[in-house]
Structures are given as C-alpha cells and as structure tokens.
C-alpha cells in the first residue's frame, strides 16, 4: 500500500462515515474453505469501537466521493469544496482483503457518489463484489449501497454477490427530499425497495442466493422539520410494505463545508437514541406508532425518558402487572424489562413463584420495573399512581460544583 492509496483511504473513509449502518449480521453461515478466505457467522462482529461509541465492523468506504447530485445534507454534494478521490475496483478489493486477513473487519460496506451515470456507478460497485467473490473466493460480508436511479438488472446483479443491499431514503417526507435533495426521487427510491424486497422473497422461496441478509435504509434526523411521528410512520411502512430488515436513524451531524441551506449545528443525539428505542418497540415489543407517539407531545418523543416508560406513565391504569401471571405481551410493556428478561421470567415462573429478588437476577432494569410490577413478596401500592413517579425514576441531575 503506497502513500497515494493511504491518502485516498483517508478521504473516502471520511466521506462514508455519515452512514450509520455497519451491521454484519443476518448472513447465512458460510466459509471460504481451503482456497478462499473468510467466513460469516450469522451474528456479526464489531472489530473495534471509535470514540463516538460506534462499532467498526465493515470497511466502510466510498468508491468515489465525486458526485453529480447536490443533496444539501451531504458532504459529498457536487457543490461542496471537499477533497475528492476515487478508488479503482482493484484497489477496493486489495484493501478489503488486506484488512480482512489482519482480522480488522468482517467485510466491506461499499457506497459511492454518482459519477458518469447511475448505471456506471452501480456497475462499478457490483464489479467490486463480483471480483471479491469470484476471483478471490471471499466469503466475508458484503453490503452494497444500491443506486436507486440505476437500471433494475444491475441492482439485481448486485444482489447475486452481496449479503445486504440498502438504499437510503435519507429524509422521511417527499417534500423534504424535493427541497434538500433535488435530484432524488422518493417514489423511485420506494419503487426500488419494492423491487429488491420482491426479489429477496422470491429468491428465498426458490432457494436462490439474493441479498440473503435483506435490505436496510437510513433516515437523517434533525435536518428537516419532520416530526418523530412522521419518521416512525415512514419506518413502519418500510418494515411492513417492503420487508426491510433495519431502518437506521442518523442524527444530522455538522460537516465541514456545510451548505447554506443546512448550516452546521450539534447533532440531536438524544433524539436519535429515542427513535432507536421506539423502533425496537415497533419491531419486538408489539407497540403501534400511535401508542409510541402518545407517550410524547405534539408528535415528538419525550427526550427525558425512554418511550416505553413514557407510554407506561400515561397508561398507569394498565399497571401494576403480576410477574407470576401476566401474559408475555403485557410483561413486554413493563418499563425496565427487556425481551430477553421477559422470556426468562416466563420460563422460570413454571418452576417457582417469583419474588422480587428473583426478578432482580433476571433483569437489570428492576429499578424502573418495581413501580409497575407485583411479585410474590412485592406490591407497589400507591407508588404506581404517585404524581412524582417520573421524578423518582429519572436520575436526579448531578449537583454542579460552584467555584
């Protein structure tokens, strides 16, 4: 690896880092064998964490950050003064294999600015994946970003080699897309999601290999005026209609060379965090978008407490629930109890009547749960309905020392 390649790596990693997705999970177990290289384990591995707390699992780079599009939120928009670079197909292959052999990564997450034409760009991405798989027997994880404006056949060729395909919606509403990403077309993006979703389902039924780890997308939060309610409604539609595996939320983050349409400001990290929590409630806890939104005010989630606690505080008549007799769905709604803790409770209570200390061994969230739970030796009494319950459950702000 020479200095020129190192410089390109720096530019094109920096250019790719605003994409939140880095998952390497969901692929079937697979190994490269004696002539290939690599394996996938199904669960994915984070090989490092950066000081922003994010996991480094895949080599996340752009093929190039030259771009014909002019999306206001993006550091790589054509009107930005950022430094530009471009990898060859071969360079990306070499970097991926070099880092993979050193056990730095699970695989590659490749995206790109749009150069020449969407088809040309998509074809280059596909060629990287094909070269890795066919010429090097690479069995690690490959996530390709799909260029929604590219021809369908190219996207489908990409699905032959990739573990996951994704298309970023970026903004929750078509109106915002028009305003901030004039070359993008929300309808076209969803049409491709539909196409990819259909192919994934067909391939599964026909036992063919096509993007086996499904597809995902990302929405930027805090760049436009979309409410949490409208973001979650969009997610809900994406999960239901297109069978998406994941929706990622990315707090709009200040970028060098910010556009005058969206000047730099600190990212709304807490909001992003609450959206992820709400997303889990949607997918694994049986909540509806309306219920989640009702926990907050005016379509925005409560930033001070998690959305499950917010819902419980507004629906206290449903509590307390008895840990020894409540059904699984209701236990999932108890603040502080995660899905895994609930499963353990359901299994353990067949053997014994659970006391509060038993629950403490099964869940680390007992502090929040105890106001909503009845156990063999515990009843919250009036605690559930106390007006100051919220204050009691939220950690008091740390005393500032005054000098």
């Amino acid at each position, binding site marked *: 690896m020479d200095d020129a390649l190192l410089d390109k790596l720096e530019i094109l990693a920096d250019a790719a880092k605003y994409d939140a997705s880095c998952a390497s999970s969901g692929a079937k177990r697979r190994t490269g064998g004696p002539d290939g*290289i*690599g394996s996938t384990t199904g669960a994915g591995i984070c090989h490092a964490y950066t000081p922003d*707390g994010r996991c480094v699992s895949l080599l996340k780079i752009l093929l190039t950050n030259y771009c014909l599009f002019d999306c206001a939120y993006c550091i790589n928009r054509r009107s*930005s003064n950022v430094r530009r670079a471009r990898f060859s197909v071969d360079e990306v292959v070499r970097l991926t294999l070099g880092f993979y*052999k050193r056990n730095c990564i699970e695989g590659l997450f490749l995206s790109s600015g749009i150069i020449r034409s969407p088809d040309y760009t998509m074809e280059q991405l596909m060629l990287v994946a094909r070269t890795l798989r066919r010429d090097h027997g690479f069995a690690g994880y490959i996530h390709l970003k799909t260029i929604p404006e590219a021809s369908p056949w190219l996207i489908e060729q990409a699905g032959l080699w990739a573990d996951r395909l994704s298309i970023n919606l970026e903004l929750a509403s078509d109106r915002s897309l028009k305003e901030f990403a004039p070359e993008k077309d929300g309808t076209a993006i969803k049409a491709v999601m539909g196409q990819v979703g259909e192919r994934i389902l067909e391939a599964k039924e026909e036992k063919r290999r096509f993007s086996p780890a499904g597809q995902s997308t990302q929405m930027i939060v805090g760049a436009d005026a979309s409410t949490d309610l409208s973001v979650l409604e969009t997610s809900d539609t994406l999960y239901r209609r297109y069978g998406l595996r994941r929706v990622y939320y990315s707090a709009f983050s200040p970028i060098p060379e910010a*556009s005058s349409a969206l000047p730099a400001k600190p990212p709304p990290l807490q909001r992003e965090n609450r959206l992820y929590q709400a997303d889990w409630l949607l997918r694994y806890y049986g909540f509806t978008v309306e219920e989640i939104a009702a926990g907050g005010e005016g379509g925005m989630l409560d930033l001070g407490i998690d959305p499950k606690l917010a819902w419980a505080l507004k629906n206290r008549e449903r509590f307390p629930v008895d840990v020894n007799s409540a059904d699984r769905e209701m236990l999932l709604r108890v603040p502080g109890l995660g899905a895994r803790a609930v499963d353990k409770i359901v299994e353990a209570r067949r053997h014994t009547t659970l006391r509060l200390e038993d*629950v403490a061994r099964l869940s680390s969230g007992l502090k929040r749960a105890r106001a909503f739970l009845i156990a063999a030796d515990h009843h919250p009494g009036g605690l559930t309905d106390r007006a100051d319950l919220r204050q009691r459950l939220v950690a008091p702000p740390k005393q500032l020392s005054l000098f």
Partner: protein
Amino acid sequence: MYRVDLKDGADLDGFRRALRGLVALGADPGEVVWSVGAAPSLFGDDAPLPADAPPVSLPRPVGALIESVVCHRDPERYALLHRLVWRVLRGERDMLDHHADPLVHRLALLDKAVRRDLHKMHAFLRFREVRDPDGAERYVAWFEPDHFIVEATAPFFVERFESLVWTILTPVGSLQWDRRSLTVGPAAVKPEGLDRDDRFAEGWQRYYESTFNPARVNPAAMRAEMPRKYWANLPEAAAIPGMIRSAPARVQAMIEAEAATPRRRNPDKAVAAMARQEPATLAELNRIILAADPLVPGATQAVPGEGPVGAAIAIVGEQPGDQEDLEGRPFVGPAGQLLTRALEEAGIERSAAYLTNAVKHFKFVARGKRRLHQSPTAGEVKHYRWWLMKELGFVRPRLVVTLGATAALALTGRSVSVLRERGPMGFGDWNGFVTVHPSYLLRLPAGETAEQAYRDFVADLRRAREMVGEPPDA
C-alpha cells in the same frame, strides 16, 4: 473428604474424569475439595476416585454449559459445576430453565463472561503479516484473553483463515495453523517487533481515525464495548486520546465556519448525461446481456435474441438449451430445428422473424455427462423480463408469439394455461399470440396425437402470419 487435582487452565478432560468418579461414588459436593495446578496433597487421607467410572448422562444444555464454564478463571468453577450436576441427577433435570435459582444464575454469569471473552478475542485479535525468508505470507497475533479460551477460539480462526498460515500467541497458550493442521502449544511471551513493516497496519490506523465523527464523541459508550484492557494490543487504540482531545475544537470549527460558498460548476451537462444511461440500441443491450452473470450459476454464456430490427413477428421461447448454450445462438437444438420446419410450412421465413428467449441463460442439472434442462422459476423469469421488454422495444414487432408457458408468463405476468388459452392475446403494449413450445411436441410419443399436435402448431403459426397481414398461402 475427596480431593481432586486438576491441571491449570480449562481442564475439561480432567473434570469429566473426576465427575464420573464422584458420581459413581455418590459424593456430596460438600465433601469435595477441588484444587487446580497444585502439587498433589501431602496427606494421604483423601479417598481415591475410581479410575474407570462409567460416563454420566446429562441433558445437552448442561453439557454445553460445563464446556463453557470450565474455561473461566474462577477457582470455584469446578465445585459449582459439580453442585449443578449433583442436583440435575437428583431430579432437577430442567433446572437450567430456572433462571432465578442462585446457582443457575451464578453459572449463567460465568458462562456469559466466557462467551464475551471469546467474542472479544474473535473481534480484537489483530494479525500482523510477517514475511518468511522465502517470501511466503505468514500472520502472527498476540492477544491476552481474560479466561482459558485459547483452544475454544481455534475453530473460529481456522474456519475464517483456513487458507492462510498463522500463529496466535497468548500468555495462556498458543495456536499454530499451517493450512492443514492445528497445533496447540504452551503459553507464550509477547514477541518483539510485530509492529514493523506492515503498511496495512498503518492504513488501518488511518482508516480508524477517519471513520470517527468528532461531533458524536462518546467515550463511555466506546469503553463499555472496548474496555481499556484491550487497548494495549490494538494498534489503532494509540490514537484514541488524541481523537477525544481534539474533537470539541474540530466541531466548534465546523459550526463557526461560515456556510461554504458552493463552487460555481455547471452540472447541467453531467446531469443530462445521467439521464441517457439506458442502452440506445439493440446491440448495446445485447452487450449488457452478454456481460451479465446468470442468476443460477452454470451457464456457459448468455444467448441473446437473433433477427432483424423491425421484424413483423417476434417469437419468444423459454430459455436456451444445451446446444444453444454452447453455440450462443437461439433455437439451434432439436426444438429449434422443429420450429424452423414448422415456420417454413407456415410460410414464415425464419431469418425474417426475430427469435429470442424469455430467460437468457441455460439452467440445468448435471447427470453424468448430460446436462438436463430445468425450467426457470417465476422469480427468474421476472428477473430477465426487463431485458426482454427492452429488446421488444428495439425490435418493435407487430406481433409477439410466445412458445410455451414460460414465455407467456414473461409477457403477461401471470401463469397461462397454454393448451386452453392458445390463440391471440393482448400483451399490454403488444399484440400477442400464445402457442405451445416445440419441445412439448418432441416429448409427445410418436403417433397420431403427436402428428395432430404438430399440425395444430403449424396452423397457429399460419394464423400468426395472417394476423400481421402477410398474404395467405398461394
């Protein structure tokens, strides 16, 4: 009292042997002293364990838990496992489901710690490339796990790096893989000079720094998953303090910087060019088709359509067969020859028609030397449909004749019963005509039925010819 001496580390075999003996004797866990890596007892008053006690039958999850927990550093691990087995054998066979039981909970914590340690070793171990004197590629890693997991991690590294030669060194054991066999070795010391001469290691550090977003700095979240104890052996971690220190200033600078004045570059031409990416001619489309990979691996090459642009009739078959796949031309095998004959009898010149297939690659199963045709699935037909539609768009025939069910499916998007629905049919933008595939005629046993079927096929083609206005037979 019983005293059991086990080896240092994860002595699964020793524990298994001792457990069999203890179970055979009916020893109460309270009467057993477990000692690890110590000199044998000086006092000879401990009862000896029977050497060849029979195996103990345990539920599978208990066996798996034992294999994991023996890797833990906790000196109490063997005693805890013995108590678990003792209770399981005394009737609590499902006791692992009783997650709130203090013993089960304690063992679950040990198991979790071991599994986390395994996971972190898979994640944070870094290989360095060292060149052998003969120039061969070889990789070496140094890692310090919390527990006795080195052997337990071997399957992961062997599976992933089977084609490489590598060595993993740790303070509690080592592994060596030569592409064929694994050698488990003794504890090692950290080798000197691993950091030299590996540009990829330098590249990795640059990547790590570049992929960090200073506006989201959150060291606590990082340390929760990547505690400091791992940093010493992670080359990229050397940059962490500097990255955290400079983050606030970098963010401040971004926020205070005035919004950038966009470069005055007129993108209109480039953006217009973008819209012209679709293939403009049939030849361009065919180049794309020929360069594409088959959806189901196996085919020699793609077989594009054949015939003049502007042909009055386009004939769509199912997919190339064995011979078509080898020659790269449509309808040259037995069914193709039959089609050519039928076309002739119907008064259609083969070279004046456009011939193509719904699916462009041959799909087969190998049976000895023979390649047996396999019908494409509905999903595969859909995948190839985009090309077929483009193709017809360039040829612009006045009539599209589909041969067989697959072609009819490609044009209509639904499953068509060919024998019942044969005849004219609208295909959206195209006037269509549905008839049988000549390979169906070849499959019929010779006789009156087959001859009648062939006559019907020729009659269909004749009708098709009349539909495009060619004069009837003279």
